[in-house]
């Protein structure tokens, strides 16, 4: 079957019934059969990574409420989607994230102390105190900075994928987006270009059902996000985004397809934003608490924990110990990161351009002189 036809089948099948059904549809497809679900060791690694973000996010939201950091966008409820998808990547692949994929950076080896220093925006931050929290960038782990402007990363990701094609390497680019971003101009441009150029890119949509206060059915009249792929000649797959194995299986298949030169895929991960959009939001003003409670029963971290218990791969004593270990790790890292001094004012003028133009040299001298005389 031609890819477009298979996509149509997948996307239209995925419109039916429950999320479990959707997962089954994805698992049964031909593309998936070559990719076994995560083995126990993989599940344990994912569980650790997911619990680590859960712990980190809870602590960061507390710091924000205490006024110790400026802003934070937590991934709570979406850990399986974030970790299960990033787990399918190789080190040389690139991540073009949206707001909630800081966990992908950590999973792929970025250290916790500089990560938290970025949230404080101090001298331990490799972005030099310039970028907002949850907008990190680390070239060392091939993750770029998210643009606050919704959807921008998507066309950029196609460009990065096109570059891999030109350079004839086997890098794959993963572009994350939320359900809201599917309304953006860049979404349509990116999907179309990816189809036309057969670019090695995987679009991973974390459909968490809410764009701040706007529910998905006010964002799109489509039956699903996945079905949008059909019109662009791409496969579209929808899976249960709170099942880490399903996420991994679908995304790994799409990544391998891209790596084989067969082009892009849109993967819709159906999940739920259990908390606020960001530290600036209070979802109790617009969301039915019953809906939140229903999704809490599908909490991806608890689901994976139960599954590991059922597999006899994990027990509650180990779990308690891991929770304590991760909390200690996060708290130690916060302590170390928070103790670092603010960025030096003199660094303000760096990186505006490659090489420092005369007028910025002059501005720096004036500013430092003014600070010397007036204190600022």
């Amino acid at each position, binding site marked *: 079957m031609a890819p477009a036809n298979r996509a149509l089948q997948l996307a239209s099948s995925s419109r039916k019934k429950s999320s479990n059904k959707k997962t089954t549809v994805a698992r049964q497809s031909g593309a998936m059969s070559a990719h076994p679900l995560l083995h126990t060791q993989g599940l344990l690694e994912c569980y650790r990574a997911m619990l680590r973000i859960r712990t980190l996010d809870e602590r960061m939201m507390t710091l924000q409420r205490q006024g110790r950091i*400026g*802003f934070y966008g937590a991934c709570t409820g979406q850990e399986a989607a974030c970790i299960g998808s990033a787990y399918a990547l190789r080190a040389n692949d690139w991540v073009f994230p949206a707001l909630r994929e800081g966990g992908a950076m950590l999973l792929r080896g970025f250290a916790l102390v500089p990560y938290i220093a970025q949230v404080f*925006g*101090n001298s331990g*931050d490799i972005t*030099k*105190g*310039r*970028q*907002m*929290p949850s*907008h990190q960038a680390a070239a060392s782990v091939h993750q770029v900075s998210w*643009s*606050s*402007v*919704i*959807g921008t990363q998507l066309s950029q990701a196609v460009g990065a994928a096109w570059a891999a094609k030109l350079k004839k390497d086997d890098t794959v680019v993963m572009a994350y987006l939320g359900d*809201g*971003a599917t*309304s*953006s*101009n860049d979404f349509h441009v990116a999907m179309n270009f990816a189809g036309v150029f057969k670019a090695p890119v995987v679009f991973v949509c974390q459909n968490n059902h809410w*764009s*701040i*206060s*706007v529910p998905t059915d*006010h*964002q*799109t009249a489509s039956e699903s996000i996945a079905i949008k792929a059909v019109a662009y000649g791409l496969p579209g797959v929808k899976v249960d985004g709170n099942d880490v194995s399903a996420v991994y299986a679908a995304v790994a298949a799409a990544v391998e397809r891209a790596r084989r030169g067969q082009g892009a895929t849109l993967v819709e991960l159906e999940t739920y934003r259990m908390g606020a959009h960001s530290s600036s939001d209070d979802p109790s*003003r*617009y969301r039915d608490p019953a809906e939140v409670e229903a999704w809490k029963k599908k909490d991806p971290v608890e689901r994976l924990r139960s599954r590991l218990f059922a597999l006899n791969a994990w027990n509650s004593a180990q779990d308690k110990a891991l929770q304590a270990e991760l909390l200690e790790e996060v708290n130690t890292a916060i302590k170390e990161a928070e103790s670092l001094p*603010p*960025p030096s*004012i003199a*660094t*303000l*003028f760096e990186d*505006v351009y490659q090489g420092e133009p005369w*007028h*910025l040299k002059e*501005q720096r001298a004036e*500013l430092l002189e*003014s*600070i010397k005389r*007036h*204190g*600022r």
Partner: protein
Amino acid sequence: MSELSYRDALNQALNEEMSRDANVFLMGEEVARYNGAYKVSQGLLDKFGSARVVDAPISELGFAGLGVGAAMVGLRPVIEMMTWNFAILAMDQIVNNAAKLRHMSGGQLRCPIVFRGPGGAGGRLSSQHSQALEAHYVHCPGLKVVAPATPADAKGLLKSAIRDDNPIVFIEGELLYGVKGDVPDGEHLVPIGKADIKRPGDQVTIITWSRMLLWYVNEAAQKLADQGISAEVLDLRTLRPLDEEAILTSVRKTNRVVIVEEGWPLASVGATLTDLIQREAFDDLDAPVQRVTGLDINMSYAANLEAATQPSVERIIAAVNQVLYR
């Protein structure tokens, strides 16, 4: 007269104009059920219903274009941009279309539309959320650009903007929403294109607009007064068309000028004002015009870097001292 926040003054203007004219509607991200990202549209969905207070899918270009189309056939849309930073995505509709339709159609079409939302720094929101972009729009013929500093001006100018038959870029100060001030009740219209002397003085004119007035200029003027220097503070309120008469009258009175602007220095509103003043009032000047602007760099998240990037009371006083040769 009531004491209202800048946010509530804008809300009152929208409420009054939507009650007065059924052709006025509000569209943007989060404006309806969430009552606006900054709560400017509080209560409007309940009062006017979902056909006139509309949550748009996330595409600034899309809902700006929808507004332009609706305006061409007789409605008076108010299009809320969550921030002017994101409105960059809508510039094709604002600059290539709204600004030009009347002219391109030989006067057959009109585009009575207000694009409004917050601009400028917002408090540790970094470079993509903190830009003062008014100069981009001031550049464009066909547009009018408004940037009120006080709650009373916010209400009076928004009402005038909604009634204007031209496309209006209405830039609110992101940090001003909570600022309180006296606002006339009911029909209060501030004409577009009129500056306002916020503090009379005779030794130096400080020209500014929007948040710079309340954050830095008022305090600098008071400190200067304590030192025996009488500064006149001129709030432009409208940046296009410029109130040249008010600017030149003040310059001819004080003979010295400092311009305070949140945005970047190159090709800025302040640069245009300086050009105007040197051409029209060269013989009245006792010193070269000085400008205090945001630094010529992108905004940072770190609090100390953010503060250092913006104008300050100290930099304004230093500029005044320079034009006074003190």
